[in-house]
């Protein structure tokens, strides 16, 4: 039976998360279709066609899907759901918004943040901020699940899927008012191979400039702990943790972050973790591969100099 992957995109570009969710789908079965729903989303659909192993790309191009409104998207997905045994989306803000609505409309449960496929009906997911891993078997006919993209490697882009156009338009009561996106030249936090994160000890928004320099020098993304976001040092979409972004880069540098359970939940699967903190008792040192007990305002400039 076939698997449907809901594409993650901003109409113009397909996000790397989609290629990672397709990899998860291929661990379940071989007939993988991708749904690209958006407005003027031809470019995103073209990229989806190139994802290795994708059978068919379904394209729903309409103004009603422009801003990924959950009411509209969920009805569209439900309209094609009977063709599929699995419906997957990235555990992104869109996937988390839309998919539970889809599941309830289909009267099936959802499995959130899947990190491992055991079999076509059994999956592993973290619970309690990653303090435990639950192996869950779905008893439903249609398995609806969100996938933790950082747990899978993106598929290649050498495919040539066919395209099917969906012209059903669904719209509900929700009206889009506005959107403000943080502009950044740096790589996307979820996709970056290096992440430099700062915590409360950065002291001010201005002081984050040295971390930005470090991130830029390493070609990485900037992240932050909840404390730094709450203090207003950086915007909240940079928050790494249980309720922010989950990342697993090759290198994660935590500067002035104590390492609360909720923060660790978002980064402890990074390949190499470096912690710079002046408190030798900080819990972050328990997960760090390399720990440096030092004042960040001395260590980070020196680090910038040496790399």
């Amino acid at each position, binding site marked *: 039976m076939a698997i449907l992957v809901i594409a993650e995109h901003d109409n113009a570009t397909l996000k790397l998360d989609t290629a990672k969710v397709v990899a998860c789908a291929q661990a379940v079965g071989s007939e993988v279709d991708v749904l690209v729903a958006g407005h003027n989303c031809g470019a995103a659909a073209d990229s989806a066609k190139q994802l290795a192993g994708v059978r068919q790309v379904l394209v729903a191009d309409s103004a009603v899907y422009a801003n990924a409104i959950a009411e509209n998207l969920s009805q569209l997905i439900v309209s094609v759901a009977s063709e599929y045994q699995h419906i997957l989306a990235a555990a992104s803000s869109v996937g988390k918004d839309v998919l*539970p*609505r889809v599941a309830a*409309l289909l009267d099936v449960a959802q499995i959130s943040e899947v990190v491992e496929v055991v079999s076509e009906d059994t999956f592993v997911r*973290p619970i309690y901020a990653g303090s*435990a891993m*639950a192996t869950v078997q779905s*008893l439903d006919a249609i398995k609806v699940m969100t996938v933790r993209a950082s747990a899978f490697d993106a598929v290649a882009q050498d495919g040539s899927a066919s395209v099917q156009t969906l012209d059903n338009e669904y719209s509900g009561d929700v009206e889009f*008012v506005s959107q403000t996106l943080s502009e950044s030249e740096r790589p996307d936090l979820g996709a970056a191979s290096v992440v430099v994160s700062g915590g409360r000890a950065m002291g001010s928004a201005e002081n984050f400039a040295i971390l930005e320099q470090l991130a830029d020098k390493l070609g990485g993304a900037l992240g932050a702990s909840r404390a730094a976001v709450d203090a207003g040092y950086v915007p909240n979409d940079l928050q790494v943790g249980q309720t922010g972004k989950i990342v697993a880069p090759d290198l994660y540098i935590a500067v002035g972050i104590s390492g609360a*359970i909720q923060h660790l939940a978002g980064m402890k699967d990074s390949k190499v973790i470096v912690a710079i903190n002046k408190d030798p008792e900080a819990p972050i040192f328990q997960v760090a591969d390399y720990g440096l007990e030092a004042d960040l305002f001395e260590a980070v400039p020196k680090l910038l100099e040496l790399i």
Partner: protein
Amino acid sequence: MKVLVPVKRVVDANVKVRVNADNTNVDTANLKMAINPFCEIAVEEAVRLKEAGIATEIVVASIGPKASQEQLRTAMALGADRGIHVETEEELAPLSIAKILNAIQANEQAQLIMLGKQSIDGDNNQTGQMLAALAGLPQATFASEVKVEGEQLVVTREIDGGLQTLKMPLPAIVTTDLRLNEPRYAKLPNIMKAKRKPLDTVTVDSLGVTLKQHQKVLKVTPPAERQAGIMVASVEELVEKLKNEAKVI
């Protein structure tokens, strides 16, 4: 306007849980329990709407064992007017919770239902969206700002790249994100007063809800342990290790 706020009893956010010896669940015996932090934010927002003269009544509901009444009393001490406790010993999936809440909403006909975006135990992030689907209501998830403008709700949401603002008719469902507000502490006189506020206990059957099992937890295991790291003495040593040992820069 009536506001319905479902709240959940969970292990306190600062407690690190461990998997039990037979790998069937996490061991929650004798751990400190509390209102799920996101539910607390939902209660706070409802109370602020009442203080602003917009909400007239706040009903809190919780589904779980008898001890969940503690969390309902806490919510009432924070300003909720009455509580509904759906008593069950079973651990229910979010879809079942959403079905029960939908039955409560059918009785209460609240104009606004405010839930936390996720509970910090199951980390599912599903119940609000599922309730919206079952009740046929619009949803605004991950809210960082909520404004009631007449019969319309204007909500700013935290999305991956920034913020998004949506407008929708009431009744509607909102799930709260961390940045929505800073919850207050319950004052002692209010804790005393909350003991006298009405609290109804009902059962799943009395609400006329039939539930089915959608999934089985086969096992719960501890996460993979990270290998112990090392402390370096200087920035020079750190850079040397990252270049030559870890080869990541």
